[in-house]
Structures are given as C-alpha cells and as structure tokens.
C-alpha cells in the first residue's frame, strides 16, 4: 500500500522552479530518507505532501487522497519547526493541544516518557534548551498515533546523545509497523535510519535506491595532487584539473594512492578528503546530464 505519492509533482514559486516533475512513492512500512543540500526542494516536497502547498503541476496523494482535505491528514504526523513552539505554553499543554485534534491521541505521560521529556512537562516551551524543544517538536509528530510520520531535519542541532535517543524512538516506531519519511542533509543520519534513500537536488530526484547503493556514489573520496602527467587509473569516477592541481574522485582512495606509487608518478602535495554531499550531488547531477559531464566544475 502506498501511503504518500508524488506524480510528476512540480512546484514553482514565481520564477523559481523548486520541484521539477518529481515522482515518489512511500509504501507502508518503509523508512525512507530524503537527502539533499539546502534549497534542493526537500521541504517543498514535504509541504506538498501535507497539503500546505498545492503543486503547480502533477499531483500529490496522501493515503490515496488530496492532502489539502483534512480527512486525509488523519494518519500523518508532522514536526513543527521548534523555533515556532508557543513560548508561553507548558510542554504538557502543547501536547494536549495538538492531541485534541486527533480522535485517539497517545496519553500525555506516555509520549513524554517515550521522548525523554517527563521531567519537563510543566516547563514553558520558551524556557527549554534548543535540544529539548527539538525533542518536543519531534514528539508532536507522534501524538495522533500516525501511520506515517514526515520528519524534517529531526536531529539538526542536537548533541550526540540526544540524537541517538531520538533515532531510537524513530526506529521503535518503525519496528511497530510505522512508516517514516525523513529529510536530512547528513548522510550519517540517513545511513543510521533509512533503508531507502531518495537523493534530491535542484528540484529533481537524482537517485532513488538502497542506502548501500547511494553510499557507493556519495561515499567518494577526493584525491588531490600536483603532477604533470597521469597514467590511466582504474576506479576513478571523475578527473578535474585546476591549473597544475589534479583532483581525482574515487571510491577507493587507498588503492588509488597505491596505484599512483606503483606507476611511478612523480607527484607532490598529496591530499585525501572525503567529498562533501554537495560534491557527490554534483557528480550525480553531472551523470544525469551526460552532455555537460565534461565541463570541469569549480567546486
């Protein structure tokens, strides 16, 4: 069963094309990560899926209906931006208030407990730390016993311990049969949680695959060196030249360095760096547009 679907969904804001013919299916029981740099269109896609915005072209479906009809939002849970929590209200009151919109909300005490907020029930949200507010915001997505939760950057700004606690709560929900669509610009977070990754950039779906497969593309290393001539090397995804500097993108930097030494290349100033997601996205984008693949990037 498909819980959320985008069919050729397109969204423009004036002249800006935020989403460009996006297809996406989220099936019951999946834990899908939506990965992409800021401004890629992740939030726009989530806004379409929860009915906050209308697609300019194509269509979106939530539980086989129009998400702009409140009835179809009955089984979906969404995270508010934690900066927007009503500051003068207490944690327990915010939970009760959101719960009042659902027929069978999770009891306040149970939810507080599940998200480690039990000690904070009587605190006003304005007095919480950023991490505590973040936890409350994520907890709110689960108040209505949703079948699908949409989590936008759920752990941004959390310390390691809080992040892992939140990951546990998300995994527990998924283990109980819940479906999750979460966005992140951290590959690490997607890897820790998701089974399936949808990479989105410049408003388009660039890749939709298993975590391992995406890791193969995204987990590239950049080997930079200064040399005159290079022999043909195996496993090099892309070569960029910047005057005498040469940048090699590869999946196996160790082997590449061994190959360079074995081939007797006279090089200096060797540098090995993990590629940023940004670079990985550029690689994927370049692959999806073969005509431009030869153009060197300045990144």
């Amino acid at each position, binding site marked *: 069963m498909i819980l959320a679907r985008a069919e050729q969904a397109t969204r423009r804001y004036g002249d800006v094309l935020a989403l460009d013919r996006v297809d996406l299916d989220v099936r019951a029981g999946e834990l899908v990560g939506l990965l992409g740099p800021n401004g890629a269109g992740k939030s726009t896609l989530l806004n379409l899926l*929860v*009915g*906050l*915005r*209308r697609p300019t072209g194509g269509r979106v479906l939530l539980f086989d209906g129009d998400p702009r009809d*409140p*009835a179809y*939002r*009955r089984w*979906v849970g*969404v995270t*508010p*931006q934690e*900066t*927007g*929590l*009503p500051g*003068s*209200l207490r944690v327990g*009151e915010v939970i009760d*208030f*959101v719960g*009042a*919109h*659902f027929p069978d909300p999770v009891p306040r005490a149970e939810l507080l407990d599940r998200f480690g907020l039990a000690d904070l029930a009587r605190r*006003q949200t304005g007095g919480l730390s950023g991490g505590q507010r973040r936890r409350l915001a994520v907890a709110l997505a689960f108040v*209505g016993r949703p079948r699908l939760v949409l989590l936008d950057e759920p752990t941004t700004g959390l310390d390691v311990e809080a992040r892992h606690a939140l990951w546990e709560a998300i995994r527990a929900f998924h283990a109980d049969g819940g479906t999750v669509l979460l966005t992140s610009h951290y590959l690490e977070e997607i890897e820790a949680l998701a089974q399936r990754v949808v990479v989105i950039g410049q408003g388009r779906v660039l890749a939709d695959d298993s975590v391992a497969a995406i890791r193969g593309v995204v987990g590239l290393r950049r080997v930079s060196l200064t040399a005159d001539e290079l022999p043909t090397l195996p496993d090099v995804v892309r070569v960029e030249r910047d005057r005498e500097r040469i940048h090699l993108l590869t999946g196996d930097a160790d082997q590449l360095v061994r190959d360079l030494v074995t081939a007797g290349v006279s090089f200096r100033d060797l540098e090995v760096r993990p590629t940023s997601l940004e670079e990985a996205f550029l690689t994927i984008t370049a692959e999806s547009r073969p005509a431009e693949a030869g153009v060197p990037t300045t990144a």
Partner: protein
Amino acid sequence: MQYALAHARYQLLELVRTPVAVFGSAFFPAVAMLFFVVPAVGDDAVGATYATAAMVTFAVLSANVFQYGVGVAEDRAQPWDPYLRTLPVGPAPRFAGRVLAGLTLTYLSLLPVVLIAALLTEAHTTAAGFALAAATVALVSVPFTLMGLAIGYALPSKAAIVVAQLVFFPLAVGGGLLTAPGQAPAFIEAIAPFLPTRGAVELMWTAVGDFRPDPLSMVMLGVWIVGLATLAGWAYRRDEGRRFS
C-alpha cells in the same frame, strides 16, 4: 466545536501567561473612567450611565482592534501557524477559537469600567438594560473584530501595531466616545455619524438608557460592517494565497 474550544482555551492560556495583554486593553478605558467620567459626571445618573456605556464601547474598540490586528499579524509570522495547518482539522476551528477567545478577553477588559461605574458613580441601569448591554457588546464587537482581522491579515506585525494605534484614537474621539451625547464639538458631531464607533455607542446608549439612535449612524454602521467584512475577507484570501497555495 470541540476543536474550536481547544483553540480558544489555547489562545486564552497564551493570553493569561502574558497578563500585560489583558491589562493593556482594560487600562485606557479604566483610566479614562477615573480621570474624566468620575469627577465630571459621576454624580449625574444619566450622564454617568451614558459615559460608562461610551467607555465600554471604547474598551470594545481597543480590545478588538489590538488583539486581532496585532495577534493575527504575529501569528502569521510564526512557523507554528503552518504547522497547525498540517493537523487533520481545517482552518475554521482555529478561527472560531480566536473569536471565542477574543470575545472572552473583550468582556474581561470591560470589568474594570463596569466596576468603577458601579462603585464610584451614580450610573444606573435596569437588570434588563444590563443584560441587553452585555449582548450589545457582542454585536458592536463585530465591526471592530473585522477591522482588527483586516489589519492583522493585511500587514506584517510591526506595521499592524502602528496602524491599529493610528485608527484607534481618531475613531474613539471622532465617534464621540469621549463626550456625552450631543455635547461634542460641532465638527465631531458632524463627522461622528459616519464613523462605526458612533453607531456602536448609540446602540450601547439605547441598551442602557432612553436614547433613540440616529438612522444615519445605523445605516453607516451597516455600511462599515459590509466594507470591513469585504476588506477582511480580501486580506485573508490574499494571505492564504501567499502562504498556502
């Protein structure tokens, strides 16, 4: 309805947690009562009754224009507002809750005026007059609620505060709220019937005393209500179009 009550409760909780909001809308009418009405016409039963009714109208005007004008504009700027739109309930209960909370706050802000009138002046009305006046408060809240909504949906919060202040005082003075019936300077008597505050205060005077409303004021009040409803509706749809389409 159950959702509307949840929203009203939530809005009132927020208000109660910042008591200065409640205090603010009750302050001016109460001070005006103490400084102008009590010493000037406190001993005159009819004058004090009319003056109290005018101060009640003044309080209704200020409570509604400010809480809707500023409140709606501030809410629109918060990311909490779009979050509430993702809950499985349409925008109507939130709106109804806001109006319920607004009426509650309006009645609360009248308490000091009514208490001062009862304790420190000769103002007098019958039980039926009092009940009629209480109901009239809800009726005359309509144009000022619409005015506040129009300001709140049309303007960002900083501009909304300024505009609410700019419209509030001329409406109060120009409508003759600070003067007894027929006692205002000539030019105010001339423009008053064309302002919504005049129609509102005449309805209040009619409720508590032996006053016959001016047909021109009543017609103009109707015109204002229609005009303000149109303006508020336009501002609301424009805001919806910008943020939720």
